């Protein structure tokens, strides 16, 4: 059984299995592509359009994989109040084409921002040197 079929089988018996399946597919392949959508649709007795509608609705799912490492920088109000916007030019320069620097709206670290997330680790009280180092190490 291939990876995709195994993921589907793992969740098929649970209530509302589509999102848990999509999360696992995204984690395993870095994206949920058209072929995966078709296979999931067929297994769950949904149309491909229904599955594609869900995949395209949520920010967490991507249609094609991006092999670059990702750094998520919080740009919400509380981090703005603590000066995140002033860090953005240096962060973009450090990221260049090598790192995907993406926006996230709130990591729940609103009293110690600016905050960023890399994988499942979180970082707070960022200034230009700390954020640049974080991006270069990503």
């Amino acid at each position, binding site marked *: 059984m291939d990876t995709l079929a195994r993921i589907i089988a793992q969740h098929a018996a*649970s*209530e*509302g*299995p*589509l*999102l*848990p399946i*999509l*999360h696992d597919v995204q984690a395993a392949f870095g994206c949920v592509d058209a072929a995966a959508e078709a296979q999931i649709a067929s297994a*769950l007795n949904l149309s491909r359009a229904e599955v594609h*509608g*869900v995949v395209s*609705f*949520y*920010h*967490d*799912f991507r249609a094609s994989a991006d092999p670059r490492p990702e750094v998520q920088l919080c740009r*919400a*109000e*509380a*981090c*703005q*109040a*603590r000066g995140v916007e002033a860090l953005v030019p240096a962060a973009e320069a450090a990221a260049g084409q090598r790192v995907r620097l993406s926006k*996230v*709206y*709130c*990591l*729940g*670290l*609103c*009293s*110690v*921002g600016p*905050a960023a*997330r890399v994988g*499942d*680790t*979180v*970082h*707070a*009280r960022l200034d230009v040197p700390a954020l640049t180092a974080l991006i270069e190490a990503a």
Partner: protein
Amino acid sequence: MTTVRISDDSLALACGADAVAAAFLRAGCTVERVSSWGMHWLEPLVEVDGPDGWTGFGPATPADIPAILDGTSPKAIGRVADHPFIARQQRLTFARAGRTRPLSMEDYAATGGWAGLDRARALAPAEVIAEVTRSGLRGRGGAGFPTGIKWRTVADAPGDRKYVVCNADEGDSGTFADRMLMEGDPFALIEGMAIVAHAVGAAQGYIYVRSEYPHAIAKLSAAIGIAAPRIAPFRLDVRAGAGAYICGEETSLLNSLEGKRGEVRAKPPLPAIAGLFGKPTVVNNVLTLTALPHIMAAGGAEEYARLGIDRSRGTKPIQLAGNIRHGGVFETAFGIPLRELIEDIGGGTASGRPVKAAQVGGPLGAYIPPSRFDLPFDYEAFAAADAMIGHGGVVVFDDSADMGSLARFAMDFCAVESCGKCTPCRIGSTRGVELLDRIRDGAGRAVDAVEALPQMHNASKAGHGREADVALLTDLCETMRFGSLCALGGFTHYPVMSALEHWPEDFGPKVLGPEECG
């Protein structure tokens, strides 16, 4: 051997708690990882067990360890529970914060855990609902709906299956109380959900946590694994969101749980009648559910109802965030004035500059100027002042904030996060961003081809100046407010119009004369 307590809350980790803990281990200490006290400017906060009891130090770095261990560190803050920030609070929901290991059933039971569930299960479901109604508890997610009445509706609704759903999609900037509870006191949330399940007759529950909170998801999953026998036959699962802010709205959350696009549903039917998979469903916020174990413990409902003012009963965990010197979670009875929270407890801005504004209630909350800081923290008082307390987040800005840019951000956020179901929100937000850009750059707009037609008698032939654009924006906000299906489009006018009303000078050159804005 010296015992040291350090939080493993994700905020402490983000501030470097793991490196501090590892250094204490290398120094030969026993390290206990506990929940966070919620004094975030002191994280990583370290408590050391010495001859005079536990002493706190913070913010600690690995380099501070020798001085902390020989008692000469200038970062000592004395006994943490006596710190004014903690001593002034009335902690019911956050009673265990800083004091217990999050995944220790032993610690949980030793601090009164499961007493509420055991007492609730000894009562008839209708008696549990009556007690919660008597406590005056209202939904802590933002809407403030009376919890007991919601449960009554679900309990009375016909259905072969019923569900309890925890809304843990805490997407509002400036809020972190849900996250702290899920990471620091997960059994309290599990106990609260088991109490609801007993009251309404549900066998299955789901906790919908946003994917931006990986630590909370891991802690909850582990806690459910440990506590499953304790809450049986009730079953509980964690589901991860997928990065959509709108899924904090309860009907779009239910759609998301069902595996659909997170689009808002029209109400009625209420989720209490036809919710998850069309079945009667209680949807409550993390803070509402974690208040329950205390309320259901003996005498808890009466104590809860005694606290607070008017129709806002009990305590509210308020989150002090943004540019504030003493940020963190401050749980207190309703009624405390905003000024006391920001200036006295919060210590003003972290930057040391004057406070310009505070946004209360998340991205959809109003910007409040210091002249209005006498407002008491209370659902009705805020509503009367055209603001909302929402989930209790207070984000402070200093005088460097550009309110015009923040108003544009609010409108743009609505455009990015709109689910697309209703027109005022989907299209209004995009038009609103364009309007704000035009107002802010002061360019105005020339007469277009259609307006120039002789048949268009009512169209202006003189072009559109700033006043016309401001009037149009006001009208657009009104349309979004009354025409949107949910709070996203319906509340975006709060940040936009409050910023325009109080700081017109931040919207480019002269928008309103001083005489017009009072």
